[in-house]
């Protein structure tokens, strides 16, 4: 049962990611990106990372995607001003690079039958993340707040600058 859901949501995530890259209109790309994020959140649930799955939906499918669609709406590019996907040569080289790298990686990480080891009770819930986050990684956690503050102030400063 888990394997069925795994392959279903993996196919959804990969298909939507392909849609992001190969659709010309950025609005369509943004909607595909949201689909990919939601499918990944389901994969996170299958990995027993319940808290991270919720955060994924809130932060990515919520905040980041709203930011993307906001910018697309503010710019409001007319259809003919959208950049082309790529010049023929660049596109062919990019796809060829991807295919070669995929063959290489498929040789290394081909899916095997082996499953996961059983986990202890309470793995992936809020407590099991909060304890290391506020003990060993307390400094890193405080620094993330600084990163976000710089992000907010920097974004406002950049976007409001008179040019």
């Amino acid at each position: 049962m888990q394997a069925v859901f795994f392959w279903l949501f993996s196919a959804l995530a990969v298909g939507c990611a392909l849609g992001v890259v190969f659709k010309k209109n950025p609005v369509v790309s943004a909607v595909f990106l949201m689909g990919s994020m939601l499918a990944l959140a389901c994969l996170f649930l299958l990995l027993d990372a319940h808290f991270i799955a919720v955060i994924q939906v809130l932060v990515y499918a919520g905040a980041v995607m709203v930011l993307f669609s906001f910018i697309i709406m503010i710019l409001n590019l007319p259809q003919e001003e959208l950049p082309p996907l790529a010049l023929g040569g660049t596109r062919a080289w990019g796809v060829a690079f991807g295919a070669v790298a995929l063959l290489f990686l498929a040789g290394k990480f081909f899916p095997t039958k082996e499953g996961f080891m059983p986990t202890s009770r309470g793995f992936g819930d809020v407590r099991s993340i909060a304890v290391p986050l506020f003990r060993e990684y307390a400094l890193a956690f405080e620094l993330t707040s600084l990163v976000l503050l710089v992000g907010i102030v920097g974004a406002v400063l950049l976007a409001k600058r008179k040019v």
Partner: protein
Amino acid sequence: MAGPSSYMFVAAILFLIGAVGVVVRRDLIVILMAVEIMLNAVNLQFLAFARQLGQSEGQVFVFMVMVVAAAEAAIGLAFVLLLYRTRKTINVDNINLMQG
């Protein structure tokens, strides 16, 4: 059963799609989206190993990656806005001021 190798396979495919997107696309907004796909592929990998090793530290790292990704998206999109106001384009081929 879907084990760690299956998750690594899917994460590798997603990362490659993101990398190809950065190379292939000319639209700065979509390039940022492709970067988000790559970050998500890394998150999936982290969570798969956290599950395999039964340790929550991997999930803590995913949390950190998400924070940095959110900040990166905000700053990157502010740049896109500023760039569009000054140069009237978001095509990376036309942004060649620093090209030697």
